[in-house]
């Protein structure tokens, strides 16, 4: 039973992996500026794997972390990183800066 459902999600995951990635110029961007995430609520399409750019404009390093998204990445001061996100179920996913936990935001995944 468990094996069958694992197999099912496995197949859908493999299918999603083969989907084309969005073109570079249309990547969603999350900016860190003045120890705030901008936007604080980031809307992303559900059900597709996409790249997310995290751009740090502060002179402090940040660690973008989200147990909801299972993501953890260092963003150097005045630097930028690109991560893969999804495919996500529609819903809300919290994230925060592990170096400044007052800095929080939410990814809102919406279906088409």
């Amino acid at each position, binding site marked *: 039973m468990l094996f069958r459902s*694992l197999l099912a*999600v*496995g197949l*859908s*995951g*493999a299918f*999603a*992996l083969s989907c084309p990635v969005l073109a570079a110029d249309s990547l969603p961007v999350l900016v860190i500026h003045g120890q705030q995430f901008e936007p604080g609520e980031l809307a992303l399409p559900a059900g597709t*794997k996409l790249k997310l750019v995290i751009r740090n404009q502060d*002179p*402090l*390093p940040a*660690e973008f972390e989200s*147990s*909801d*998204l*299972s*993501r*953890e*990445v*260092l*963003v*150097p*001061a005045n*630097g930028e*990183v*690109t*991560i*893969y996100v*999804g*495919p*996500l*179920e529609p819903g809300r996913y919290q994230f*925060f800066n*592990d*170096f*400044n*936990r*007052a800095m929080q935001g939410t990814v809102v995944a919406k279906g088409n």
Partner: protein
Amino acid sequence: MLATAIIMFREVLEAALIIAIVLGASRGIVGRGRWVATGIGLGLLGASIVAILAAEISSAFSGNGQAILDAGILLSAVAMLTWHNVWMSAHGRQLAAELSAVGADVQTGKRPLAALLVITLVAVMREGSEAVLFLWAIAAGGAQNASMVMGGVGGVVAGVLVGLLLYHGLLRIPARHFFSITSWLILLLAAGLAAQAAGFLNQAGLLPALGNTVWNTSHILSQTSLTGQFLHILVGYVARPSGIQLVFYVGTLMTILLLMRSKGGGRMARVRAGEGAPRTSD
């Protein structure tokens, strides 16, 4: 100051707990202290190098350098923990017998001392590089940040103290149960680290997620709470695991158990295999 202390405490905690467990599990092996200390030293060196190169590492592998490095570090720790546990399943009974004789040395077998070194090295290096970067950024802020630096140092001390507490707690376990308990701890630790590695490989786009949220227990126990973080480190608790993390967790668990049974074959291995499923699988 307190905020800084808490952040540093969280960064240090994982390394402190892992070192406490392997120090406990390698009890009775001659020379382990020197190897673990060398591992900590090299780990701090590695952490500083990673911190200095943070920007370069981030941009490597089209922005996935960090995730790939983290996955590599974690998987090498899993390999070493596996080696350690398999070795212990062959020699643990003898070690347990000799623990009763004070100061007895273990003379047989190829001792997994290099494994101890690598485990400590990677444990310190992984979280240490973040800690170094963080402290560095604060220190660069100048004199007004002196209290934050103090807080950071306080957090490091607190993390090390928790590690010491766990180590001394482990030492109180009676000798006849000692190695079967520490090998369970290492087994769950290794499975949890393998699941973390799977998360990073998925983050880098190298593995499919196989479903992003197989279950969600964040409303019962948030992974970012202190209890959640302890369980995350010790047994690999994940509030919203992806399918690939489960595959790695269970796969690592089964692989190590099978290796322990085939190499050990003794009473301990059978007892361990019969103790039922780990907490995280429910």
